């Protein structure tokens, strides 16, 4: 990637949480236990500010960034800012603040142990995520991808119990295997093309790699992304990782890990292979049909789950496949939709998870069947939950609508009626699995029996919930509000397919 302006901001952004992580680990347990949150915030706010400060440059289409050093022979460790990465960075940095705030409430309210490790690993995850956002080439991307894999592990095994250990192993098995295959794919790709840098629209020409190899490399490289994104045959680590504390689930399912998977798929399909090569080797078709199957099946599974977090997890699996589908359709609209769905899903799903966590901390209930009438006790929380549910289902004037509409338009423009049908059916299914929660919560009959008192969760938990719920409403009405996220998504989508704005 040729950089037009030298700018060290991406590097600082990556460095900030890294320093925070190290500081928390070193000082955490015994020296300054109560400064963990302070350190986190001290890193989170400047980081978000720095990310926001780069939006104008990204909107102007300037490619800013810098090369740190040559990380392996012939390939630099390079950071640059482009529209797609910017979207993800904005989401992640914003939600880090929100989640940290929520974590304080959750951890204090729930009396969790091992908080040092938790905050440290959390910051480390953010380092990796920011690195992913601003990586300018595949190798840099891969390095942060693997760091993310490892940094998430302590969060999954947070409770140090039997179940946590088991899901930790499952998580590692899935992500490490796919990561190593990704590595093999990168090596083979590099040996054929000799290039590594992300180019909108890809740098692989159809003649670069002989055909069976091309599909093999495509699948190897996609594997890592779709495992992290939880596409269907490879999703089972994701519900298992539900054992972790709720802020972790929120991070896993809304901010860092799964989005990183989706983002990885985006980078590989659209920035490495490009639409032509992806279509040429039939990789995109395989990807699209996997996504379709996932959307439908996961929604059906979600309906049957009684555990709220499990239901949300399967919902996540389905929603992420929207992004994958949007990428695999290979049209400008769909790509825009996919990118914007990263934003949309982040805000919606984090609201839902945080609500679930708030309910758990306040009432210690996990299952939906036990929550009948909870709307009486926690009206604000449940209102936010309702808003987010509607957004997930894709109601107009909610954030989910904008992204889905774009994907549907892409599918129509590519002449794929089946995908359109899938998206619409899945919206209905989403209503089917989320609305019962809302309806049961506000059911009048049980108002006085189970939850007599009005008692919300504590403020550090409530405020983030309200903020994200509001965001998912505001961004639905005004997609370009504040951070110009929709504009960035449209820019990226157009750049990939070589269209001018």
């Amino acid at each position, binding site marked *: 990637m040729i950089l037009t302006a030298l700018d060290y901001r991406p590097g600082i952004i990556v460095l900030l949480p890294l320093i925070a992580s190290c500081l928390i680990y070193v000082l955490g347990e015994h020296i300054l236990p109560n400064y963990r949150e302070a350190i986190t915030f001290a890193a989170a706010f400047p980081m978000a500010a720095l990310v926001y400060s780069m939006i104008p440059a990204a909107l102007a289409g300037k490619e800013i960034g810098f090369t740190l050093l040559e*990380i392996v022979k012939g390939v630099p460790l390079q950071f640059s800012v482009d529209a797609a990465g910017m979207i993800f960075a904005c989401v992640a940095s914003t939600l880090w603040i929100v989640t940290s705030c929520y974590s304080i409430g959750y951890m204090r309210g729930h009396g969790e142990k091992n908080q040092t490790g938790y905050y440290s690993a959390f910051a480390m995850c953010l380092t990796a995520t920011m690195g992913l956002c601003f990586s300018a080439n595949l190798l840099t991307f891969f390095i942060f991808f693997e760091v993310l894999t490892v940094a998430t592990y302590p969060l999954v*095994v947070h409770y140090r119990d039997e179940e946590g*250990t088991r899901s930790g192993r499952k998580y590692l098995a899935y992500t490490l295997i796919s990561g190593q295959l990704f*590595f093999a794919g990168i090596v083979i790709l590099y040996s054929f093309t000799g290039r590594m840098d992300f180019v909108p629209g890809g740098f692989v020409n159809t003649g670069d790699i002989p055909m069976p190899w091309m599909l093999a490399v495509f699948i190897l490289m996609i594997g890592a992304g779709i495992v992290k994104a939880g596409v269907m045959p490879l999703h089972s680590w994701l519900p298992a990782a539900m054992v972790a504390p709720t802020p972790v689930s929120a991070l896993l399912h809304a901010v860092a890990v799964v989005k990183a998977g989706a983002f990885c798929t985006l980078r590989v399909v659209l920035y490495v292979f490009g639409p032509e090569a992806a279509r040429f080797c039939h990789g995109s078709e395989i990807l699209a049909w996997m996504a379709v199957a996932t959307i439908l099946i996961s929604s059906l599974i979600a309906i049957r789950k009684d555990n709220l977090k499990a239901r949300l997890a399967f919902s996540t699996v389905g929603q992420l496949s929207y992004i994958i589908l949007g990428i695999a359709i290979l049209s400008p609209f769909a790509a825009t939709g996919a990118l914007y769905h990263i934003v949309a899903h982040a805000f919606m799903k984090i609201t839902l998870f945080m609500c679930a966590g708030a309910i758990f901390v306040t009432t210690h209930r996990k299952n939906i069947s036990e929550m009948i009438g909870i709307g009486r006790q926690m009206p604000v929380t449940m209102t936010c939950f309702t808003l987010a549910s509607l957004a997930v289902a894709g109601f107009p004037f909610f954030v989910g609508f904008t992204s889905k509409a774009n994907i549907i338009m892409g599918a129509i423009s590519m002449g794929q009626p089946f995908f359109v049908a899938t998206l619409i059916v899945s919206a209905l299914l989403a209503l089917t699995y989320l609305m019962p929660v809302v309806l049961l919560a506000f059911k009048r009959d049980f108002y006085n029996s189970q939850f007599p008192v009005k008692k919300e969760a504590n403020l550090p938990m409530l405020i983030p919930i309200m903020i994200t719920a509001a965001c998912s409403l505001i961004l639905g009405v005004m997609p370009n509000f504040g951070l110009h996220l929709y504009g960035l998504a449209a820019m990226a989508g157009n750049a990939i397919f070589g269209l001018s704005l």
Partner: protein
Amino acid sequence: MKNLPAYIVLLPLCSALLSLALSKIHKHLGRDVVFGALVGSLVLSVVQLVRVIQNGPIHYIFGGYKIPYGIEFSVDTINAVIVIMVCMLGVLSCMFAFNFDKNGDALQVGGAYTMHALLVLGMVGMTMTGDVFNLYVFLEITSLTAYCLIAMGGSRGIVSAFRYLLVGTVAATFYLLGVGILYSVTGTLNMSDMAACLKQGNNDSAMLMAMMFLISAFGIKMALFPFHGWQPSAYTHAHTGARPLIAGAMGKIPAYAMFRYLYCIYGKDFKYFRYVLLIIGVISVCGMIYGSVRAMAQKDIRKVLAYSSVAQIGYISLGFAIGSPLALAGAFLHMLGHAFMKGGLFFAAGAISWKYGTFDLNDFGRIYKRMPFTAGLLTVGALSMIGIPPTVGFFSKWYLACGAAQTHEYVYIFVLVLSSLLNAVYFFKVIEKVFVQADKNRKPLHPEGKGVTEAPITIMIPVVTCILMILLLGVFNVKVIDILLISLKGVAL
């Protein structure tokens, strides 16, 4: 400064020779002299590397005779780097050993450090020498000191040492036989002269036969897969103070000697070169899988690390088998990296055992609460073993894979992937033990307070340095690769 290479071997030698005599004056005087000499060697080896980079290879001939008649030390960038690695591990493990010589008389203390310095000396000499028979002598020095250091490890140690002695002597004999065959067709013992002579004559069958002997000799010494039988118990039961050095550096030097024979003496003109490489490739692939599979079943962290060494040595010889410049550079990077990884992991394990006297993985439960730094460093070392960026393990794997892709040997890439996944299985088992699983009732050997209680500083410095080296080598690997490539350009495929 023209005697620089000589000083590097003479400093540890003199200190070792006088260590026993000095120990009679004061129990720890010999030890301090040895430590000082090793530090001196380290400094000089760094100076040497700088000079080699600036002025090209150094050829130092002892006795001042002409080149095929005297013994030569030929130092190029590759072995200058390896010498630094050996000296550094030597210094660190000498410092580490300070903690394990409390109960011994002056003779034992002085003797143990004598052995330590001589082991370093043997490895340094083996790396720098340019004479095939001189290599044999250094090989024997390395072996004898290693037998002794392993035997000092207790009841199992003596049996391991005896087995290693038998096998090691067979290896030395094979090496001598290989040298004999080569000498009988060339009439010279100097490596560069021998290479020139071999190119002239039509000696392919003799060379092939010699190569078979040499591969088995070095294979035994570096514990390559079918010859590794002695290694796990030897690494496991060696003297605690010397284990990091033995496990970290000792296997690498024969590997370097094998590289010398393969690429500097034989070269690509050798008729059966491809077949030899194929054989090495096959056995290293088998070793990579076998070592990892065996390591998974172990409960003792020393055994885990020992079997993983079998696998990791396979990486190095795989690089030799691929043979493209990048793969060779990767093999050497892995050689350096693995020395520090294994050294660091053994240092960390030693720190834990210094406190709790145990190496059993089941006793490691949630040890991070008592020793968070050791646990964190252990984790970084383990991640490097698996090959997670930005540690050096990833980058050496990268170069190996790139080399394999350049020569279109894609099988090797998948073996690398498979092996690192198998590594992940048992190293995450270790990490899980350290961080996740429940406490076992450990009893501290030394009185300790509440909360965080790390091992003493002389143990922590080696651990920290090794892990730091892993990260530095990882991040600045291009510098190392550039230095290595200066000398690799001429010899690689």
